[in-house]
C-alpha cells in the first residue's frame, strides 16, 4: 500500500494506492470516487476493505480524497464539481501509467454519479464502471443533504424554522451555507442539483457496468428507479451485472458498519 499526494488542478490530493498482489491478465486498475460529505467518512472502512480485497484479486486500486475533502488540500467550500471530475481524470491518468493496463472507475453513491459523469466525457478511455448504490438524482441528493440542517434543528418550534426551499433560494442568491458542518458553495450545489444518471445513459458507449445495491432483505430487487436505468443501459448494449445484496446503508450509519455481502459480491465479479 502506497500513501502519497497526487497533483490536482487546485491542490494536492491525498491518495492511497493498493497495487495488485497477484498477476492478472489483462491488467486492470480502478479509481474510487467516494460519496458526498459525511458519507465519505462513514464509508471509508468499506472502501479500504474492498480496495485490499480487489488488490488480492489482481486489481490495482487507487483511493483518493477529492479536492477539499478528507486529507486533500483545500476547503470543502472551495470544492467544485469540475475540480472533482478533473481530480478523477488525473487519477485515471496516473493509474494508467502504473498499471500498464486499462483503468475503470468505482463509485459509491454520489461518487457513482461522478464516475458516470467522468466516463461519459470520454467513454473510450474508461475500462468499466463499478457502481455501488448509485445516486440517480443529484437534485434529490441535494435535498437530502439540505435536510440534514433541518433535522438538526428538529426540536425547535416557531417561524424561524427553515425549509429546503429557503435554503435553495439563499444558495441561488450566492450564499454559501453551512450544512451539517460542511460549507456548501452555490456553484457546487448547482452542479449537483443538475445531475441525473438518466442523462448519461446514452453517453457511456458500451462500457461494462457493475451495478450493486444493498437492501434489507435477502433476494430483494433493485430499487424501481434503478431498474429503469439498468434496463435502459441493457438496451444500449452494455455488458451489465446488476443486483441487490443483503446489507446495511453503511455510508449513512452512525457507527462504522460493514456490508459483507457487498464485499463478497464485488469480489465475485473480479475473480
Amino acid at each position, binding site marked *: 500500500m502506497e500513501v502519497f499526494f497526487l497533483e490536482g488542478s487546485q491542490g494536492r490530493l491525498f491518495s492511497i494506492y493498493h497495487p495488485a498482489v497477484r498477476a492478472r491478465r489483462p491488467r486492470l486498475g480502478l479509481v474510487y470516487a467516494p460519496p458526498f460529505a459525511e458519507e465519505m467518512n462513514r464509508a471509508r472502512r468499506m472502501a479500504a476493505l474492498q480496495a485490499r480485497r480487489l488488490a488480492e484479486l489482481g486489481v490495482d486500486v487507487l483511493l483518493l480524497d477529492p479536492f477539499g475533502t478528507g486529507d486533500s488540500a483545500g476547503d470543502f467550500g472551495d470544492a467544485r464539481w469540475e475540480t472533482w471530475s478533473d481530480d478523477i481524470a488525473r487519477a485515471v491518468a496516473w493509474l494508467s501509467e502504473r498499471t500498464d493496463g486499462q483503468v475503470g472507475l468505482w463509485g459509491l453513491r454520489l461518487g457513482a454519479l461522478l464516475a458516470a459523469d467522468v466516463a461519459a466525457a470520454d467513454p473510450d478511455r474508461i475500462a468499466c464502471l463499478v457502481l455501488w448504490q448509485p445516486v440517480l438524482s443529484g437534485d434529490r441528493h441535494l435535498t437530502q443533504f439540505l*435536510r440534514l440542517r433541518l433535522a438538526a434543528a428538529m426540536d425547535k418550534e416557531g417561524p424561524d424554522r427553515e*425549509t*429546503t426551499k429557503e435554503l435553495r433560494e439563499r444558495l441561488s442568491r450566492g450564499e454559501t451555507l453551512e450544512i451539517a458542518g460542511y460549507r456548501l458553495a452555490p456553484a457546487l450545489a448547482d452542479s449537483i442539483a443538475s445531475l441525473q444518471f438518466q442523462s448519461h445513459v446514452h453517453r457511456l458507449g458500451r462500457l461494462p457496468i457493475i451495478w450493486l445495491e444493498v437492501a*434489507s432483505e435477502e433476494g430483494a430487487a433493485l*430499487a424501481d428507479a434503478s431498474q429503469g436505468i439498468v434496463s435502459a443501459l441493457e438496451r444500449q448494449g452494455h455488458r451489465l451485472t446488476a443486483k441487490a445484496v443483503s446489507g446495511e*446503508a453503511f455510508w*449513512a*450509519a*452512525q*457507527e462504522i458498519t460493514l456490508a459483507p455481502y457487498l464485499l463478497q459480491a464485488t469480489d465475485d465479479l473480479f475473480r
Partner: protein
Amino acid sequence: MTVVERMTVIERLKRVLRETLQLGDQVNAFDESTGLFGSIPEFDSMAVVNVVSGLEEQFDIEIDDDDITAEIFETVGALTHYIQGKLAD
C-alpha cells in the same frame, strides 16, 4: 383505513426503520408506542433524513420540510399516523 391496511403501513414503516437504523431484529419488536427521535441514540440527523427518504420511496409520498418535526418522529405510532394521513391525500 382498515385494521389490515394500518398493519401494512406499520410493517412497511418498520422495514424502512430496519434499513436505516442499525438495530437488526430489534425493530421486529417495535410497536406503536416505541419511541424514536429522542429515545433511540441511533436516530441522529442523518437517520432522520434517511428515514424521510426511505418513507418517500416506500410509500411514494412527498414529505414537506415543515413536517420534519420532533412530534412526528416521536414514536412509531406518530409516524404511522402521519404516513396514513399522506396516503389518504
